[in-house]
């Protein structure tokens, strides 16, 4: 008998596996029982309708993929009318991912989305922010703190801050998010990347650049998850390149309390439930009975203190 449940700042999940924003939707209910997931996380929405980026919106690179979808959104109204009721069918908590062009707009959306049926709000502070030259809030501790303060005031729901790997200040940003009122950190979004078709000499994404996700991202996000778990006292949700139970266990040992699965669901729509099953099997095999025995159990010895704030490769 193994217990997979985890507690994310008061929110109980039956297991630590949930989808990553933008790589999940109602349609997956046609493939397996969504009730088997620890939580449901929606694609980031914005207040207004948005078209998204020009195609091609994805390309594959050696062993991973890039995307520049650009947050197409039907707007909050459609979301309240269709999406929230759909997920209400399930006991699994619903986590709504949101974003805004300015901190105030972001906070207003946060308030408006804090409705019945929503169990937590994931604030995507890692997308471009027009107030800061297109830099994401989560690139700097100061902008992270400011936007989180406004978002915190806007809702009483658990607030998860989704961080970006495009920064040299991960521990500082994590602490700023915590101080600004985040209840958990999602670590992390995609890393800014590019690919060029050498025949046409055009960028392989319609939007010039895009985000790297999948296996290649894992060692980077894992490092960030470790840094964030060390730097703060709030739960960390690992995200980046998870495709097997071993990946989940690596994140948990590093200090994450749960993980999100993105790209792996594109390669295997049933990936998340396979991972849950594999995780159970691993725990039985290794005589591990609860997630607490894994979370943060890294044998990092003496080094951890000095090195957690290191931001350059040694």
């Amino acid at each position: 008998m193994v217990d997979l449940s985890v507690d994310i700042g008061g929110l109980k999940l039956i297991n630590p596996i949930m989808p990553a924003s933008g790589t999940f939707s109602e349609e997956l209910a046609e493939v397996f029982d969504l009730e088997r997931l620890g939580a449901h996380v929606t694609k980031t929405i914005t207040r207004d309708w948005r078209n998204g980026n020009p195609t091609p919106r994805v390309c594959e690179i050696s062993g991973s993929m890039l995307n520049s979808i650009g947050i197409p959104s039907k707007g909050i109204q459609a979301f309240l009318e269709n999406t929230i009721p759909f997920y209400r069918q399930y006991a699994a908590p619903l986590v709504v991912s949101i974003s805004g062009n300015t901190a105030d707009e972001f906070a207003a959306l946060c308030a408006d989305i804090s409705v019945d049926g929503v169990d937590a709000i994931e604030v995507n502070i890692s997308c471009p922010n027009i107030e800061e030259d297109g830099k994401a809030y989560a690139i700097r501790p100061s902008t992270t703190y400011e936007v989180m303060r406004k978002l915190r005031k806007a809702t009483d729901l658990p607030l998860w801050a989704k961080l970006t790997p495009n920064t040299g200040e991960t521990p500082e940003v994590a602490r700023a998010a915590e101080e600004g009122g985040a209840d958990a950190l999602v670590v992390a979004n995609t890393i800014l990347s590019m690919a060029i078709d050498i025949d046409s000499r055009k960028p392989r994404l319609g939007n010039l650049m895009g985000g790297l996700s999948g296996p290649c991202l894992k060692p980077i996000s894992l490092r960030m998850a470790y840094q964030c778990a060390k730097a703060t006292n709030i739960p960390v949700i690992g995200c980046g390149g998870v495709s097997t139970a071993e990946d989940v266990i690596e994140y948990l040992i590093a200090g994450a309390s749960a993980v999100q699965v993105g790209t792996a669901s594109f390669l295997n729509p049933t990936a998340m439930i396979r991972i849950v099953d594999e995780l159970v099997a691993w725990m039985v095999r290794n005589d591990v009975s609860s997630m607490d025995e894994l979370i943060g159990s890294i044998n990092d010895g003496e080094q951890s203190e000095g090195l957690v704030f290191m931001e350059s490769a040694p």
Partner: protein
Amino acid sequence: MTVFEQTDSFDRKSDYPISELDLLVKSNEPVNHEYRQLILAAPADLLDRCRAGQFFHLLCPQTADHRPFLRRPMSIYGFYPQSGELHFLFKVTGTGTRALATLQPGDRLSVAGPLGKPFEIEDSWQHLVLVARGVGLATLAPLALEAHRLDRKLTAICSARHRDYLLSIDYFKDLGADVIAITDAEGTSDVDHLERLLEDLVQQGKADVFYTCGSNRILTLLKKIGKRHSIPGQIALEQQMACGLGMCHCCVRPFEQNGQIVNLRVCREGPVFDLQAALAW
């Protein structure tokens, strides 16, 4: 707090419409020097769910030379619950299809599907006209079978560079279709000639609906003729896909809906769309 044993007991329903399965390769033979036909052994309940116009998302194998990362969408070329076979007809073009070409009988291939919206055949559509070129024939082939099953008349206009590249002609003939072959080599595949052929069919009352896929040129022509005579139509479109299910929004194309341009997901709202809504690109 929930406590699990290693169990699948959480699956509340067992009949999810979309499956992810490892299927056995029965054969994978070249059809001509560009195309191959792939035959997989598939369970009847999967085949029962297949419809003409739908597709599967294939996890092409990793080989020493080819390492496709994402899945590749392929139309259902044939589904035969009786013989337990799922057929694909594919053109070897890039990384993924080259890897697919290496599959040997006995190998396994992971497929996800059936996916997408199928072709529709309304009751009032007695004379179907199908216009296809190249690999589009793979997509339209099962429609011919369905038309045959429903006892509809079918005219298949098959276009190719050369007679040698005409695919599935015999397949259509065996299903009782009138087949009109047009080729670049014979100078019979140009728009003007095609327009005359189609107008003839319309005049003879043999065109209640048009079905096509792919080519811009044919789309533009069919839209024009369709509008002229108020003949409905459906088109199967292609776009690069990541998830194939509707989750990622990478596969969108612009369509005209109620006078507005909207982005629709080819994998979900399509791949079959209303002909008049489709925009040339």
